[in-house]
């Protein structure tokens, strides 16, 4: 099963994990992205996430379906935040359950790597003395 969400409310990691659990699952891998206090040596004040929501949901669903086609996994959940996040807040949670751990690890890692390449969500880093859209410029 696949569960995809973009939310302006805080992500609930426990609910995400509960959702993927099943009696057939022996290995569950969870990736949690968190807002770090520093980027390239600069203190981060906050991050602002913006999504092209309809398209982002479609791209997230493509990733989850890809994962199910490539690896023997049971359940795949991808939740992403939008809006303003502070240090320690959780922009993204990905959870994959599988009978065996290798598939769960491979699938979870593929999902976050691909999400960062294809899903139309953008983050602006806000510093004490400025701000920048991540990856926008060479």
């Amino acid at each position, binding site marked *: 099963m696949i569960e995809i969400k973009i939310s302006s409310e805080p992500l609930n990691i426990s609910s995400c994990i509960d959702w993927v659990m099943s009696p057939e699952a022996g290995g569950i891998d969870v990736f949690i*992205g968190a807002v770090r206090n520093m980027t390239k040596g600069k203190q981060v004040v906050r991050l602002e*996430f*913006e*999504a*092209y929501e*309809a*398209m*982002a949901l*479609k791209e997230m669903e493509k990733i989850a379906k890809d994962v199910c086609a490539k690896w023997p996994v049971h359940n795949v959940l991808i939740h*992403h935040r939008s809006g303003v996040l502070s240090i320690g807040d959780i*922009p*993204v949670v990905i959870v994959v359950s599988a009978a065996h751990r290798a598939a769960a690890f491979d699938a979870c890692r593929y999902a*976050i790597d691909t*999400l*960062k*390449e*294809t*899903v*139309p*969500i*953008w*983050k*602006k880093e806000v510093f004490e003395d400025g701000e920048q*859209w*991540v*990856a*926008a*410029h*060479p």
Partner: protein
Amino acid sequence: MRVLAFGIAREIFGSAAVDVVADGVSAAELQEILKKQYPRLAQLSSFMIAVNGEYAQPGTIISANDEVAIIPPVSGG
């Protein structure tokens, strides 16, 4: 043609959507038209065009009723 904009493209446009006279063009042609009207777009690492919520190929022809968006480099996660 209405073009939706997000992230830095929204800031370059100064608006979440702009109207462009470009009916019947391809995605690649639309990119060139936008770069001419908004030279700061040329300074981005890259940008893509999405048509109806899917990444467009350079040759994708855009129709009047399509939902068109400019997708600057993504940075989710």
